[in-house]
């Protein structure tokens, strides 16, 4: 099954059936809001999960995965039955844990300025622009995003240390998707 067969906003079960809709998610958010817990994580098949986290009065919902271009041209009326599992690299991306304490003052997420394909290195044979543990300066190029052969070097807006690379090399990213987690100086 292509991972783009599933609409973005719904969560699917093992056979592709919808097991949660927006209303269910909203109820979960309300539940967390009212409760004494700070974070709720719900796991589904295909490595998909929902994380609901209390954060300084806000309750952001983090849905994994976020990267799944190409998009179907028309919304799919009903989810397809999954006959085959997703390709290994897709599930690797999906299961990549992206749950850091973003509420911390010391941590900063570098986000995608555009939709496209994320590249960690200027060419397939090059070294990555940055690696985990690297110290980066404000204005330093950290990755490349390409869409329709328009290349955009993404520069860091902060100085700090790369704590985590949140997206796999050569995979699609959405606008605003977190790419790197940086511990600020």
């Amino acid at each position, binding site marked *: 099954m*292509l991972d*783009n*067969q599933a609409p973005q906003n719904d969560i699917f079960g093992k056979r592709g059936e919808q097991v949660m809709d927006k209303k269910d998610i909203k109820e979960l958010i309300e539940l967390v809001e009212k409760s004494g817990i700070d974070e709720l994580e719900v796991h589904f098949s295909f490595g998909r999960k929902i994380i609901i986290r209390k954060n300084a009065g806000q309750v952001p919902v983090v849905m994994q995965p976020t990267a799944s*271009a*190409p*998009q*179907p*041209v*028309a919304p799919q009326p009903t989810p397809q039955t999954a006959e085959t599992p997703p*390709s290994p*690299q*897709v599930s690797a991306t999906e299961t990549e844990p992206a749950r850091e304490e973003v509420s911390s003052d010391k941590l900063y997420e570098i986000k995608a300025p*555009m*939709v*496209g*394909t994320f*590249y960690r290195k*200027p*060419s*397939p044979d*090059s070294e990555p622009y940055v690696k985990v543990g690297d110290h980066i300066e404000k204005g330093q190029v950290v990755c490349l995003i*390409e*869409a*329709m*052969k*328009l*290349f*955009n*070097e993404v520069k860091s807006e902060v100085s700090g240390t790369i704590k985590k690379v949140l997206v796999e090399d*050569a*995979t*699609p990213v959405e606008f605003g998707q977190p790419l790197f987690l940086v511990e600020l100086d």
Partner: protein
Amino acid sequence: MASFREQEKIELPPIAGKLFWLRKVDSTQLESRRLIDAGQKIPFVVLANSQTAGRGRFMRKWLSPPGGLYFSWATQFVPGSAVSLVAGIAVLSAIKKFCSGKIFLKWPNDILTDDGKVAGILAEKYDDALILGVGVNLVGAGEFPGLGIDPARKIDLLTEIFRQMDEIWEEFATGGFRKFVRRYLELTFPPGTPITIVDGRRTFSGVFENITPDGELVVRVGDKSLKFSAGEVSLKL
């Protein structure tokens, strides 16, 4: 910075801006960045008779012997990724005034004949500037096919490319790609053409279906239409 001389004699359409014509440079893209870093105002054009490190996508080497047209145009960045498709329209429309025969665009903006790729365009965002790099094989070199355009007409072709840019750029900058879809479709292979697209690490095979108003490629894969904003297309000939 490489040494260069500013050409006073050649008059390109005003949209091009100042022309820097070099005999040889590592890459007109890199030279454009250096000029911007040194405070050169956009728009401007860097033209080189040959490049020692001409490059395409992912730093792939673009063979740039004397006799080809190699230039970069630095201008104000226009939001939206379809900029590289519009550039493809301008360059191919200009080329078609110089040679006949089957020449077409391959999404997003490669220019091909039946012999293979004869021109390539790379778009890079650099701060607030857009740097468009264009390489045209006027004549073939070794295994690389060419268009069969007399290299003596190089400046005529460059002028025509900017005439085409002048006609379409403002409309694109203000109205987006929407109005150019039809023109693009006239310059590319017909719907129904079998293609393969490699998007990052995934490969899809299907048939070309359409181009969206944002410039994305629509491919029919099985019973689904998928749209791509990135990826490398190959034709199954």
